[in-house]
């Protein structure tokens, strides 16, 4: 990989040169994949990110030469697997600014939020308590709260967002009351790309005595996450959006809260002792990790994180900002097209709607040209309703994308206008 960490940071961080970007793209095998007989133009990293070869290789090596289960055996092979797994935990913790004793491996963001709802939520919520969300949440940060609300008699409430696609902070603050026990919101909107003022919102919630969960699914791919700086109590991420494997993710839980949480799943590896008269449980993350975990997933994720650390964060961010700005500008050239929202801070994604063609049809026209975008409700039906749309098209960019791909998108949208008149 040639985009080395700059020894002296450039004054105004510039994007990547052509050569650097090409070298970076060569690290991701899918960047030279084909679809429908065309080179793949992947503008759907908000759904899931493509993988660097080093991450794939790490998982392969583990299965071919080092495979054993973790936390099970006294023999060297198993001890080594355990070391790799726990080193991965330390790396993930580090990437979140968390301690490794506050970092629980889960299947992904969705499971992380369900874990908090069922373990923490179910133990503290009472009838009449309120859980405050926002209108821009992903279904994974809505339904788990509805389920626990049903079980406990608590109520789910959503703070409104503005036409620009930003949280309405005044309303948010007003909706925080003495009844609010849990506040859960996304760091970055998967539909609008909006970056929420997490620390400000967290402080408002804490002033009311509520506990804060931040859905970091979209943030981890684009931002420097530091849970201590954000001051949140829980933070949920998925490895597959962080250039790692699917089927693994992490939940940060502030140590003092984690220690007080009742078990989530029961089983092997989370117990201290089991007896039909009653069992006792381990402390720390282990208590929430029953059963054999996705070991190769943790190891692969650690390899992605190592890879990302070889890159110059500032210049990658500048490159991504350039792509998104360019996309935003060029989209305004396309007739019959309206971009959703206009947040002052945006990363990763931009959603739009065409008055003459359903998003689904736009998706098909683009797909024929090798361009992968997401068309649909993006697991954000309440947000769609807020904007009065059944669905949108979303283009999202990651570090490996290039301006040429935005051009391809725009050409495709012109064709939509040709076909649908």
């Amino acid at each position, binding site marked *: 990989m040639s985009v080395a960490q700059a020894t002296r940071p450039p004054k105004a961080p510039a994007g990547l040169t052509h050569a650097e970007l090409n070298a970076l793209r060569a690290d991701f095998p899918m960047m030279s994949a084909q679809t429908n007989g065309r080179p793949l133009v992947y503008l759907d990293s908000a759904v899931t990110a493509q993988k660097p070869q080093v991450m794939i290789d790490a998982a392969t090596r583990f299965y071919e030469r080092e495979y054993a289960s973790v936390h099970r055996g006294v023999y060297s092979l198993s001890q080594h697997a355990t070391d790799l797994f726990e080193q991965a935990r330390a790396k993930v913790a580090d990437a979140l600014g968390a301690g490794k004793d506050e970092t629980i491996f889960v299947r992904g963001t969705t499971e992380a939020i369900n874990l908090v709802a069922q373990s923490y939520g179910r133990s503290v919520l009472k009838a009449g308590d309120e859980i405050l969300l926002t209108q821009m949440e992903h279904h994974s940060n809505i339904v788990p709260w509805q389920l626990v609300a049903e079980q406990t008699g608590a109520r789910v409430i959503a703070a409104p967002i503005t036409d620009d696609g930003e949280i309405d902070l005044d309303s948010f603050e007003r909706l925080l009351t003495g009844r609010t026990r849990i506040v859960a919101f996304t760091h970055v909107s998967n539909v609008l790309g909006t970056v929420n003022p997490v620390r400000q919102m967290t402080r408002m919630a804490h002033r009311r005595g509520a506990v804060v969960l931040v859905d970091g699914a979209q943030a981890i791919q684009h931002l420097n996450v530091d849970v201590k700086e954000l001051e949140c109590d829980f933070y949920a991420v998925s490895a597959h959006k962080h250039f790692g494997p699917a089927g693994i993710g992490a939940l940060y839980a502030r140590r003092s809260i984690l220690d007080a949480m009742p078990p989530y799943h029961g089983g092997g590896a989370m117990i201290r002792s089991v007896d039909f008269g009653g069992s006792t449980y381990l402390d720390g993350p282990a208590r929430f990790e029953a059963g054999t975990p996705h070991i190769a997933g943790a190891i692969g994720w650690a390899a992605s994180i190592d890879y990302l650390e070889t890159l110059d964060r500032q210049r990658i961010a500048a490159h991504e900002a350039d792509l998104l700005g360019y996309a935003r500008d060029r989209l305004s050239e396309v007739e019959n097209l309206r971009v959703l929202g206009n947040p002052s801070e945006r990363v990763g994604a931009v959603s739009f709607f065409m008055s003459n*063609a*359903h*998003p*689904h*049809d736009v998706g*098909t*026209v683009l*797909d*024929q040209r090798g361009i992968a975008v997401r*068309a*649909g*409700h993006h697991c954000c*039906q309440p947000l*769609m309703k807020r904007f009065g749309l*059944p*669905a949108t098209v979303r283009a999202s960019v990651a570090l490996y994308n290039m301006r040429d791909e935005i051009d391809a998108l725009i050409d495709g949208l012109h064709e939509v206008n040709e*076909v*649908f*008149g």
Partner: protein
Amino acid sequence: MSDLRELYQEVILDHNRRPRNFGELEPPCSEADGHNPLCGDQIRVYVRIVDGKIEKVMFQGSGCAISKASASMMTDALTGKSVQDAAKLFEGFQAMVTSDMDATVGDEMGKLAVFAGVREFPARIKCASLAWHTLQAALKGAHEMVSTE
């Protein structure tokens, strides 16, 4: 591009723009809701049967060009048909959109043959058949929710 034109034939685009039998049918009638959770397509189909014949069929909802045109052309094709004939046409339609690319399309499909192009777009087959599945549910008489996922 040629593939695209095969999917979005003029008659499909026309039905998408100006759907026939669009709106609510006044009772007495059966109705059913259909839903494609993947893309959020929602449809409601109303049908009035008189003496084993489909006297009137209408639909409402939002969806892509394929699902809207398919619903619209279905209503055209079925009005006045017996319930048995409707069932046969449904089978024929399903067979057509899910068959091999090269399979020939029988004459009995009439104008519906324009949907043969969907075969090359596996992700869109559910769009084309949503209205038909929903009609089946409405014919069963119960107000059921149908899902193509």
